[in-house]
């Protein structure tokens, strides 16, 4: 398991290492959550700032990625609680996704858009379960909800995503 603050690394070196290793994944997570690149960048910066301050407190009971993702999700939650966020239409379309590599499958985008347009409670469990590779126990801990609630939200999310995923499967088979 990856640990934080090895014996030979200073706090600055440790946070630099964490940023280099996890920044991109967290940026994608925050963008998928917030639908806004600038806000996502702010959330990632805030995540690492909090992580830097809490390096000493990190016990290593969970994996670093899970720990950072939990901080990131909480940063995103703080942001959407802000009055400013509520004033803006945050729905996502394929056009509002960041420009991507040309050789990737356009069907990916339609699935991603469906994920990103899920209601926030379903979206966060989907992102943590599928994207951040957490198990239901870790998600429950991160979101401070019961494991049962996590399972229930995952089931509802899968139902909502079924159509987009079946289109995706079809395009995969055809092409």
């Amino acid at each position, binding site marked *: 398991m990856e640990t934080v603050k090895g014996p030979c690394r200073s706090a600055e070196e440790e946070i630099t290492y964490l940023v280099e290793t996890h920044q991109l994944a967290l*940026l994608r997570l925050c963008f998928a959550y917030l639908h806004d690149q600038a806000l996502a960048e702010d959330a990632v*910066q805030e995540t*690492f700032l909090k992580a830097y301050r809490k390096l000493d407190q990190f016990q290593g009971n969970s994996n670093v990625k899970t720990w950072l993702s939990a901080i990131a999700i909480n940063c995103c939650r703080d942001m959407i609680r*802000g009055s400013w966020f509520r004033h803006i239409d945050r729905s996502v379309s394929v056009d509002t996704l960041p420009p*991507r590599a040309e050789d990737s499958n356009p069907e*990916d985008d339609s*699935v991603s858009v469906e994920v990103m347009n899920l209601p926030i409670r379903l979206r966060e469990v989907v992102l943590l379960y*599928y994207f951040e590779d957490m198990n239901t126990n870790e998600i429950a801990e991160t979101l401070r909800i019961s494991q049962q609630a996590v399972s229930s939200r995952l089931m509802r999310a899968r139902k909502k995503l079924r159509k987009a995923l079946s289109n*995706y499967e079809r395009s995969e088979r055809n092409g």
Partner: protein
Amino acid sequence: MDDKRKMQNILNNSLSGLQENPFLAQRVIAQAKGEKPVKRKLSLALVLCIVLGIAIIGTACALLASSQVADFFRQYWGKDMGDWLQEGKVAQVGESVTVGDVVFTLDEVVYRDRGIYGVGTARAVDSKDVLVPMDMAEDWAIWSQKQEGKALISLAETTNGKLIMVNCVPDKIGVDEGTMLTVNAGVYNVRNDDGSITFSFEASGYALEDGTTYQVMLDYETAELGTDGKQVEGSLKLRSGTVSFMPVMMAERTDEPENTATVTANIPQDGYEVMVPDEYRETGTIPYYQAVANDFTAIIRPEWLNRSGILKEESDTGSAYYVFNDHAVLDVAPEYVGYREYTDEQFDYNWRAREVDDPNLEPDWSDKQAFSYSIAAVASFVNWGDDFAKDTVFEKKQLTYLSFEDADTSAKKMMDLLHLSGYELTWALDMDLDRIKMLGKAYNEHWYESGSGFTNSPRYDYDLATAEDEGYYLIYTQTSAAGLDETQGEASFFITKRGIVYAEVRCYYMMGEKAGAPDMLITSEKAVERLYEEVARSRNGEKVVRIKTVELTYMPIRAENKRDGMVFAPVWKVTYVDESGEKKGFDSWAVFNAVNGKLIDAIFR
């Protein structure tokens, strides 16, 4: 592949365009350290990383007793200006950008009171090439005929090099990685004895708050000039670059206003008008509103103004330029729309300069302005209050073929299409046949005959006007926000029976939804007190002022929390008359944040 992995791949592919920030770690560390002291010292390597990463070389500057910027501005803009800058915060930069055959190096920047001032050097890559400062090249056609211009042409002939115009203009500024703001910019370039050009700029933004790290986006440009005074076609090269810097104090200075006690003692207790919205009277506060950055290029349709079809179109990042089949021109930028009519006749736009300045001046041929454009120009000069049109006021609500209501409706329809809201009619002039002839005659007298004005625009015989040329010149102002200068939040139209034949529209930010309300605002009396304090410490130092009005209004500024972007914040706009110095008798203004009393911008800055 299992479901989890598949979903991960899908999301990763879709979001593959998101890029890492290579300086994030340094920023996190710097932010943590800035907020509270940390026991551990940064390693030397990390310090270097931070310094290189954000192009900051700050601490060394603390030792400087002087600065290039202060010296340069002192030399060209006077001792007061230099001394004032000397008390600012300085950073040496040293970043270079190559544009075409020229290397631009930004040497030093100074921050003081919401302004960024910079000095740099432009050098030719090929020592044979001769650089021409933009200030000279702008009117190269004239300069090339004069001694200094001839000397440069002759130098280029001797070295067998090219004549290259160079320029550097600040485009946007920001603080602490917040929203980059459009600037009020000034540039001044001089040629040095060694052939290099020292470029300088002043970039001020009313929303540029005090901070730690500042950003300035610079547009560099070069273009080859022919000896005939024309820019060589296709030779214009442009490049933008953003520099981030963390300035440090050059010299100790106090932020306390000078002579506050003496000055505040002179504050008059009455004699000025206080204007506040009803909401403020009832609640003692007014809300913030979201400030939505405008972008006309994204919404404009050329056919809204002209249906003759497009003859030529030039679209670049952030701007668009259309020439219609009937030769009218539409010029669009994010914050600006300009529409004017031209004819298919060519006109020499050096005709007057040749008469007045240099009989050997080459002609400068271009499409001739249409009569409608010239009538709009006459009306706009009435609005400027030129002497020739003194006491001209709105009289007629009906012209031969057009009513005022119809003209007003056309203008409002256009403003709706352009998504402009909160604009109110603030000035109108009926240009009927008699008035076109009378004002046109006075206009010609002023600009061409009396010698009191100079223009290269074509001269028209306004006696040839017909009822078809009649129209209304209408100006709408974004009254919901304090206008800091004439170019902001204003829409002017000249409308005839044919519709809109002339338009000048400017809008930087639109008011969006409510975004909270401050608990309380400073009083109008406090705003006046703040004016006297700020005037006393200003670089011009006018100390005798008479307050005319104190108005509670709005201004777009960066929100306190940068993730909130820009907001229209409540401000006190204090209008006063200088009673001393060069500006004696002129109206001036200063705007203060109504929440915390900070000076946002002022004419004395």
